[in-house]
Structure formats: C-alpha cells, structure tokens
C-alpha cells in the first residue's frame, strides 16, 4: 500500500466519513465490512433473524484495549491494516460504530462498564478520595465511595460464574476497587502493563477454569502512551525521512501531555503528529497480533463456541487534533469515540450497527445476553439500556452523556445527541463548545454564538441529566485544583 497515500487517509478518515466511504465501496478494508441493507444479503439477514439472544451459562470474555481511538480500527474505517484480528471478529459479530464512552480516561470510564452507572455516580472521578500530600493521600476505592453499588463481576459470581480479571494495573488497579467481585484479579503494581503480561496470566487461569462457566476481563496498556513494546519499536510505519525529533518513549509522551496541560496547547509539526500516529499504529498492530495468539489458544481450549466476546476500549487518545496530547482533559471525538464489538457464540455473520450508544449500555447488554438472575439492587442501579434489541435490528440510538474531572485542570460535562450535535460544558469557567458533528466531524468550529438556542437547550439537557442522577452541577463552585472526591478533605490541595 502506498505509504504516503495511507498517511493522508489516516488524517482524513473519521467514523462519519467512513460511512460515506464504505457506501461507495472504496477502500480495501472498508469494503470487507458488512454493511446492513445494501451489503448484507438475504441469507445473512435470515441468519441474523434466527440468531438466539439468550445465552444462559455461556462464558464472557470482555477485552479492553486501553486507549484505542475508534478512528484507528479497521472495522471502523481505518485504512492501515493494523487490527486484522479485531476486524475479523467485528465482521462475524455486531460492530457498534458509534459507541461513545462516558469519560476520557481510564479510572472513571472503565468503572462504568462494571457498575452500569455514570462516573459521577460511582464516584471514581479522581484518583484520590483524600488528598493531603505528600504522604496522606488516599486512593479512591469503589467499596468506600459507593458501597451500595454492585459490580458486573459480583452479579456473575452470584450466578455461579468463575470470575477473573487480568489487567495492566494503573487505572484499572485493584486498589481502586476494580477487583470487586473477581475471584482472581491480576494487576502488577506500579506498571502500565501490557497484554504481553496479562494474556499469559489470563490463559493460565483459563486452563484451571475452562470447564466452569466464567467471566474474564482482559486488559492491557499496549496502545497507551505510558507503555512501549518489550524490545522497543521497530518503527514499521514511520516515514523514512522523519528527523527523529521524537522516538516514541513514554517520557516524551508524558512531556507532551504536560506541555498541553500547562500551556493549553502542544507545539507539534505535522511530521511529528504523523510520527506519533505511526508509533500508535505499531503498538496497535502488535497488540492485535497478541490478541490473535490469545484467540488461537482459546480456540484450542475449545471455548470459542461457548463464549460471548466483548471487545472495546475505555477511551481514545489524541494526537494534537485539538492541540493537546494523550487523554483525560478533553471530551472530543478522538477521546470518547471507542470501538465496541459484541460477538455471540457460534455467530458467523455480523452486522454494522451505526446507532449511537454509550459505554454505559455494555453492562445491561451483557447481563441481558447471559439471561442471569439480577439481584434487585443491581437491576435498579443500571442507567444504561440493553442493546439486545439493537442486535435484533431495532433502533437503539440515543443521546449520550460524558464527563471528565481531570487532575487539577478541568471539570467538563458533555452531551452528544443522536442527530449529531455535541455540547461540551466546562464547569470552572462556564465556557461552552457546540459542534455540529454532521458538518464538522473534527469539532473545529464552535457554534455557540451562531446557534445560541441549540447551545442553550443542550446545556439544559446536561444540567438536567446530572441533576437527575443526583449531581446538581449548580450545587457547588468548581474551582480547578487537585480536587479529590471528598472536597472537605482536600487538605493542602494545590497545583503540582
């Protein structure tokens, strides 16, 4: 493939353009993706209509490819072939191409899969519940912050499942309470670990538990900025002429992130952005290959036909699209638009589902598919909706909400409507960004002044939503600073 051409495609393609792209049949990868209506034959439609939607006592493998931007996934329109394994599963399964995460960094976003409530509600919105540096910081912990919440692993465990989590630690560390409900939960302290470590641990556990019904959470930071491949990069996608200003290390990535946070923007040349995307693609491709090996071993254990697969990511990542780097601070599409693939046992033919949905819908969907007995408190807590009707072809598109409280820098809340309007509201300065995603998918033109009524109404939706879930955004002043979950205990809170 022409590398130069490829780079341009990387820049140009995004999920909405992809739909058009695929429609005219252009693009080798895109053309292989099954599209409903015009690309799906009658046989496939008939197959899907007969596909069962209840999988009592089946296994679930829930995979989080941490920090995988939707636009870098082949099944979502990316032109460079970096995710063949994920794409293949997407082709066989249900590929939700408009999945919006509830948050733009790991701790708040991932806990929503496991609790079915918004980050404001599970309260893992900050790493600390008490901040009293240097020695008296207390990590946020689900059991302490929201003792009433029931986790996905707990529900499944109560229903007789063996539960195992194998992760890269950091944002999904057991210390935050991610281990709640898991028989075994692997996280290597102090690491942004990769699937190079978590997969072998997971397989080891599988060998012991393969004859039981099980729920497995598999996670790795392989694609994340704070991880680099064991043995270093081979720079397989980097332009030959690049002057090597950057080499792709976690340190460089961190420096760029901090530069953006400190100055409000990063200074990067187009060539640097291309470099970082190339590095990212190498990481993605290596991870995909690891996942392929995992699946091969999984297949050999004879578990494939007994398992529902959920492949997703907690958030995306940004490469200077809005002049920042990394993730967490903003709520732009590159940060909250994530892949979501659900493959049912024995499923041979898949479907692209373009309806906009939220990561908060994942837990109700998994529980619905498994047809488990829901404890009453768990059933009550879920805010999302099961997507099973969407698998059956019914419309499931909805307006979605997202949020981020990021370190000492910002508090943002947002809404994205199913008809393509998005408002990001920054609480500390009441500033607003309104985008018409249909016309401006890259979110470059803030329409607050041109569309004051739209901005006003969406602002009301955001405030009404958070108030309805018990978080009146007007009830406090939002002052940037190291703001732990418990304000009153924020002794010595100050800028780093």
């Amino acid at each position, binding site marked *: 493939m022409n590398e130069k051409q490829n780079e341009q495609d990387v820049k140009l393609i995004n999920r909405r353009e992809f739909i058009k792209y695929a429609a005219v049949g252009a693009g080798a990868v895109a053309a292989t993706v099954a599209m409903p209506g015009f690309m799906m034959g009658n046989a496939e439609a008939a197959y899907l209509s007969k596909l069962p939607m209840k999988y009592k006592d089946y296994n679930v493998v829930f995979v989080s490819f941490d920090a995988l931007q939707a636009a870098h996934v082949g099944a979502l329109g990316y032109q460079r072939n970096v995710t063949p394994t994920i794409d293949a599963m997407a082709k066989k399964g249900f590929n939700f191409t408009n999945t919006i995460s509830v948050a733009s960094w790991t701790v708040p976003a991932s806990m929503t899969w496991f609790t079915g409530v918004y980050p404001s509600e599970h309260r893992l919105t900050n790493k600390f519940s008490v901040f009293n540096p240097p020695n008296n910081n207390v990590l946020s912990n689900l059991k302490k912050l929201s003792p009433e919440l029931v986790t996905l692993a707990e529900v499944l465990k109560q229903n007789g499942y063996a539960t195992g989590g194998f992760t890269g630690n950091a944002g999904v560390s057991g210390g935050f309470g991610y281990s709640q409900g898991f028989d075994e939960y692997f996280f290597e302290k102090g690491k942004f670990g990769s699937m190079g470590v978590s997969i072998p641990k997971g397989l080891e556990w599988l060998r012991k538990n393969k004859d039981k019904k099980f729920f497995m959470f598999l996670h790795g930071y392989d694609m994340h900025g704070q991880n680099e491949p064991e043995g270093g990069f081979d720079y397989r996608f980097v332009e030959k002429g690049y002057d090597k200003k950057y080499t792709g290390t976690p340190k460089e990535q961190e420096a760029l992130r901090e530069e953006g946070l400190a100055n409000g923007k990063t200074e990067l040349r187009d060539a640097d952005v291309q470099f970082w995307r190339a590095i990212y693609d190498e990481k993605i491709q290596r991870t995909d290959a690891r996942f392929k090996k995992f699946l091969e071993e999984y297949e050999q254990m004879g578990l494939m036909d007994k398992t529902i697969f959920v492949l997703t990511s907690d958030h995306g990542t940004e490469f200077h699209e809005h002049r920042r780097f990394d993730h967490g601070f903003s709520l732009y599409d590159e940060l909250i638009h994530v892949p979501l693939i659900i493959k049912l046992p024995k499923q041979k033919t898949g479907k692209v589902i373009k309806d906009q949905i939220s990561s908060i819908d994942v837990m109700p969907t998994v529980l619905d598919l498994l047809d488990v007995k829901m404890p009453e408190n768990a059933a009550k807590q879920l*805010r999302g*909706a099961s997507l099973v009707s969407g698998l059956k072809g019914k419309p499931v598109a*909805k307006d979605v909400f997202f949020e981020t409280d990021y370190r000492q820098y910002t508090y943002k809340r947002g809404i994205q409507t199913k008809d393509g309007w998005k408002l990001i509201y920054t609480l500390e300065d009441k500033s607003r960004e309104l985008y018409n995603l249909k016309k401006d998918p890259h979110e470059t033109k803030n329409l607050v002044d041109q569309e004051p009524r739209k901005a*006003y109404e969406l602002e*009301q939706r955001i405030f009404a939503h958070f108030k309805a879930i018990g978080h009146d955004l*007007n*009830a*406090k002043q939002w002052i940037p600073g190291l703001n732990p979950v418990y304000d009153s205990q924020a002794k010595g809170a100050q800028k780093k």
Partner: protein
Amino acid sequence: MRLRRAANGLSPIVTSALILLAVMCPLAGMGFAADPPAAAERYKDTNVILVSLQCLRPDHLGVYGYKRDTSPNMDRLAKSSVLFDNTIAQANLTPVAMMSVLTSQYPRVNGMIAFDTAKDAVTSRTLPEILKYYGYTTAAVSGSPEFFMRYDTESGTEIKLGDVFSRSFDYFGRTRKGLGSSLRVAPVESLDWIKRNKDKKFFMWIASGVIHVPYAAGVPREDRVVYDPPGYTPFWEKFHSIKAEEGASDDTTYDVLMRLYKDEYYLGFKPVYKLTPTDYSYIVSRYDAAIRYTDNFIGQLVDTLEKNGLTKNTILIIHSIHGEDLGERDTYVHYDLSESAVKSALLVRLPDGQQGGKRIADQVQGIDIMPTVLDYLGVPRDHSQQGSSLLPLIKGEPGATGTEYAYIDRIPWWEHTLSRWYLEFKNSQTNYPESEKKPVKEYGAMLRSAFPAGSYPPGDIAIRTKQWKMILRKEPRLLEKVSWYGYITGSALQYNDIELYDIVTDPHERRNVAAQNPKVVETLRAKLMEWDAAVDKKKASYGAGEKRYIIPYP
C-alpha cells in the same frame, strides 16, 4: 378548546416527571434513550410584556382591598388575570430585587448586590437573553433611572449604559437625561413601540419609578395633588427649603422621608417635629397619587393591546419590584425587610384572559416570574434559575403549592449605598443647618472605612412563611455602628441578632417574639442558614478590582 390548550401546557412538567421515572427504571430503556416530548411551543407566537413597578404596595390597590380608588384599571385587568396575594421580593432595593427577577436568581448568585456595580458584574442569563434565542425582538422602556443610569463619581459624569439591565435588548428606551425627579415619569414611549412592532413577536420590559420617592413628583400637578388634604402646608417648610432643581418644595423627597423616625422629624440630631395625622395623610396621599397615575398608564397599556389585537397572544405580567414603608415600622422608603417593603403585587394575565379572576393565596416570590413565563411559552428553563414556575398553581394542579419558605436578602445595607456617593449627593440638595454639615462628612468617612472599596457589602437575611418572618442580622454590631437612624437621632440603635415576627397577628412586626418561640427559631434558622450556605456556594464573583459606577437614586 381553551381547556385543552391549558392541559397541553402541562407538558414541561410531565417531561421532567418522565425523565425522573426513567431514572427509576433504567432497564426500560426509556428516558435517556428517548427524546423529550415536545412541549407546547407557545414561544412561536406569544408576546411577553413585563411591567415592573417600583415601591408598589399591594395593599394600596383596590383589587387587594384598598379603600381609596387608586387602581380602577388594574382592578379591571385583574378580572381577566390571575392575582397573587402573597408575593415576596427577594430584596428591598430596586436594582437588587429587579435583577433577581430578571435572572430568577437570588441576588448574591447573580452578583447584583450593590449600587456601586462593575459594568459586567452580572453574567447570569436574563429573561430577554433567553427569549432572544427563541426569536423574540426585545425592547425595554424604563422610567426607573436605576436601570438606565450609571454615574462615574471620578469624572462626575453619567456614563453610557451597556451593562446587564440593557444587555440583550434590541431596543432600550429611557425617559430622559439628567438627574432629577422628572426621570421618574410614566414610560409611555413603550406604547408607541408596541404599536410600531405589533406584528413582531416581542418581549417588552416596562419599568416605572413614578411610585418612588419623591412620590409622583414627575407627573402633572393636578394628578399629583389629587388626594392632598385640603389646604395642607408641608411641615418641613418650617425648617428648611429643598434645593431640588426640579419638582416642587412640597414634594415628599427622600431627604424628608429619611429623616422621619418613629413619627418624629429629625434635624441636627434631635427630633424637631412630631408628625400629625394630617402630615401622615399627606405623605400617603402623594404615594397613592403616584399609584393612581401609574394605574392610568396601565389602562393605556391595556387599551393599546386591545386596539392592536394583542390581548389574545400576549402574556402581561405586572409586579412590584418591592414594596414601601410608610412609617408602620418607624421608617419610610424601603430601608429594611419589613412586610411593607417586601410584599409585592403580582398579576399575571395569560393570553385571552385564561384562568381570569383567579386569586392565589400561596406564598410565591419574584424569582418565580421568569420560570413561569418560560414554562408557559414551552421554553426550557435555565438550570441556574432558582424560582419555580407558577403555572401549576395557576392551573390549580393537585399538589401545587407555592414557596413554603421565602428568602430575602437585605443587601446592600442602605448605609453601604450612602458610603459610595449618595450621602454627599443628597445632603447637598437640601438646605440643612450648619450643625449637620460637618457631621455628615464625618459620618461619610466612617462609612467608607466600614465598607472599604471593593469589599463585599454586608447584608442581612430573612426567611418568611405564611405565619412567621425571621430576620437574621449577620453583623449586628457593625449595623449599629453605621446605622443611618443611629446617626440622625444621635443615639445608637440596638439590633437583635434574630428577630422573629408573627406576621399574622403582628403584620407591622412591632414585637420580636424570638425568645417566646425557640422551636420556631430553631427550625427557621436551620432553613435560613441552609439557604444562605447554598447561595454562598453559588455566589458570583464580586470583582474587587473592577472599575465601579454608581447606580443613582434621584
């Protein structure tokens, strides 16, 4: 048909109920997934007129039971309107109380908390701002200088307005330039504007200060003297002349009324004259004449709407910005949080006179006006609004009640306003005895040291139920020190930290019954402090470093 339309108006409330319901049963997949049902989109073709009257006491209107025939037009209008019998202002001073209405926020939340205000002090959304989002042409005509004048004390000039009272108005008309009582004339220009713009969808805000001191000074003499006791000579003419450039020496000026305390007239720090029933009757007569003249303007407004076919598609709201003290509680004008100063008239005429003639006894507040308008129009209310729609009350929905607890901010203290400019300004208008001139300067210096430039003005807070009013003095010792009445009487006043009044048996609040009702105090104090803390959490930045301009009070 009319009933059907009224029922449609429920939908915003039903909407929020549905959202709440969806939250309770999220697995149903409704609510968050579904679009909110469309509200009645009355904003497409309904005009809104808000008439804000300074210092209007409801108990001086016929329709609220006054014996003098001050308000034939409003009485008639009430037959096709909904009348609220217990409306409480959020503050006792005009710019503060009015901004609270225009934002549906308590004063500290929107930031209009003093007469020396930075130009951009208030950033909260106002009613015209929201209506402009929905395609309204917005216009205001103000006969209240508080809304169109700012004074730069450094240069001694009036500055061009461009601040929050005029923000979001396509047209902002004012009565006339200069300082003086003739600023407070009927805002008749609004009638011409309505005639010219009757085919547009409009919001018009009409403000009038005719009822403000000096009562009715800017209106034709025959209207001003209509209720005067025959042959009366004002008592103050025995003591001094009034140097007011405009108006007449028999006007009930600020200077005179603010030197009345416990029915005595104070000059040179001692009582010099005891008010007679005739003197009192004269003051009230001028006040009533101002209401009568204002009522006449309301008549013209209604006439204009009728002749231009606008009564079928216009909401007309008439309200008091706040009330007025006429000596019941020792003082005049609107110095403190007495019932007379905070009780307001409120009349809501819906298009075609729907629900006409209804009277609502439940307690409501001025901050409820804006949510009511938006609710009726089908415009989503702003999340920052602190009032509640009155439509459920108007429609008599089961369970609809008003505000069990009304909250009032006495901010700024009047002495804070005096300290900024007004003390010297006023004391140069009246020919006071020499013995008073030097102490005025000293008093001014003391006030300025008590209220340093840019410091947040101190205030008092109050809570009111249908039976009780409790006033909590936040800094009683400071209030005693700076008190205007302490100053003119030459003897220090004493304030209790807590004042509790039974407003049913003691409507003039003469007897503090806090000591006798500890349980009531406990409950009300807890409520009041809870509100106070919540408001403080949301309070607007006061912008200490900003250049400030004075809102004059001619």
